């Protein structure tokens, strides 16, 4: 059993090198397929990063009427912070709002002058709210509405001037839909390409084994059992997979380095190169395992035809 195993591996390794050109073809085709698999990983990572980044930019501002007391605003802030959906709440006082306004319009002399004409600070205080997930803004906005209405019933007067969620809503929705469909479309394209190269891989290996069908029949006539005929082909397939995987992993190194900057500008936050380095372990496993699975799997199915055919009664 152990000697059989040793012999099968040795024969497989020998065949790999003796069938040099066939091995080269199989490895190249596998490289393309594994490259597709790797691109799939990078693509979904980039898309995910873009989505998180855009969701991070989404927030809701609550503007208060100028007469609202700081205590009332801070009590709303405390209530908001106690909500499970809320990630953070930042308070901007009236004075700070004025400062920001001045800073923003420091070159706009007319606006500043108009501001000077006024007796009082025209800007109200504001709360900036970030939710943990984009879909939660709706319920936060509703919470504030209810609270505002409750306050007016208690005749304490409505202190909320406006909530800008309803203006942002359309933009937020559209953005997440665009990202969603871009992701789906991109995934679909990569999956189709991966499938095509999978078929090509399978066919190449089948052709490679087709050239060995005479050999397989001789092996069987000499009295080799299935396992012994198939073994070396599986070993060869394994080697094709591993070699192709290593080539792909090496190729990704300069490629992500080169594309990293461009992709960073396009998708936002993610740099493919640093992503590759940071997730090398995972990507390594995905590529190597897909390579082995493809190589060994295609060999298994391709040899099976020539082994079982002759055993069937006609």
């Amino acid at each position, binding site marked *: 059993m152990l000697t059989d195993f040793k012999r099968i591996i040795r024969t497989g390794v*020998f065949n790999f090198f003796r069938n040099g050109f066939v091995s080269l073809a199989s490895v190249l085709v596998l490289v393309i397929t594994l490259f597709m698999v790797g691109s799939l990983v990078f693509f979904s990572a980039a898309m995910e990063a873009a989505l998180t980044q855009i969701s991070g930019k989404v927030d809701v501002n609550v503007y208060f009427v100028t007469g609202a007391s700081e205590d009332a605003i801070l009590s709303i802030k405390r209530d908001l912070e106690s909500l499970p959906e809320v990630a953070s709440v930042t308070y901007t006082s009236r004075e700070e709002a004025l400062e920001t306004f001045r800073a923003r319009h420091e070159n706009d002399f007319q606006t500043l002058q108009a501001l000077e004409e006024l007796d009082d600070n025209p800007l109200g205080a504001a709360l900036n709210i970030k939710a943990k997930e984009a879909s939660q803004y709706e319920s936060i906005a509703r919470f504030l509405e209810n609270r505002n209405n409750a306050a007016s019933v208690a005749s304490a007067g409505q202190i909320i001037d406006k909530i800008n969620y309803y203006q942002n809503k359309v933009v937020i929705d559209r953005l997440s839909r665009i990202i969603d469909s871009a992701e789906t479309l991109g995934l679909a394209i990569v999956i189709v390409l991966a499938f095509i190269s999978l078929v090509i891989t399978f066919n190449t290996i089948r052709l490679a084994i087709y050239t060995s069908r005479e050999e397989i029949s001789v*092996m069987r006539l*000499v009295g080799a*059992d299935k396992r012994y005929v198939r073994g070396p082909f599986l070993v060869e397939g394994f080697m094709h997979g591993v070699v192709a995987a290593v080539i792909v992993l090496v190729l990704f190194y300069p490629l992500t380095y080169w594309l990293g900057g461009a992709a960073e500008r396009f998708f936002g936050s993610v740099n493919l190169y640093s992503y590759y380095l940071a997730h090398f372990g995972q990507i390594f496993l995905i590529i190597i395992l897909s390579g082995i699975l493809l190589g060994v799997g295609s060999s298994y199915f391709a040899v099976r035809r020539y082994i079982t055919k002759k055993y069937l*009664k006609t």
Partner: protein
Amino acid sequence: MIHFDKVSKIYSGNVAALDDVTFSVAPGEFVSIVGHSGAGKSTVLKMLLVEEWPTSGSVFFESTDVHALHARDIPAYRRRIGVVFQDFRLLPHKTAYENIAFAMEVAGRDDAEISSDVPEVLRLVDLKDKMWNFPDELSGGERQRIAIARAIVNQPDVIVADEPTGNLDPKNTKEIIEILQRINELNTTVLLTTHNKGVIDSLGKRVLTMERGKIVRDDKKGRYVL
């Protein structure tokens, strides 16, 4: 030892490759099967090797009906028969040594046996100096001698040779037949198909003559009659 019992093989379209073939071969016999192309000589051998299934009738090896063997037992059965073909059928990516060693490996022999037996059997066919050559570096006669070495290395009970001299010149033909005779003298049953008159006449052994799937003559000390 080998018994064909009313074996017929009919391919689609009512073409009978074998038609009610019955004969027996005793252990240690040297039997030649002669006949024109398409007479059914090779089909007889394929039946014995379980490469073909009969339409009716059965083939016995010792007391086993070989076509009733389970698929997983066929390899072990085939190892009891050494096969030599007209087109040699060596494994092209293996050297002469490895081709012979392969037959021993599949029979589960250990490395020590292989490294002692392979040079031995190569000496028997007089090719010890070509041990590390690949088949395409050898002449036809040399390839056929490698094939014979591969067939006998596991000391099978029967050697089946399907027109082994079909591709060879007279000198090589003579050598191959002499090797087969030597093997037969060591008490191995030999089954030979040929259409070489000279070979049959020089052997002076039992001859089965086939015509259109039937055995038409069975001569104890046969001559080539067709």
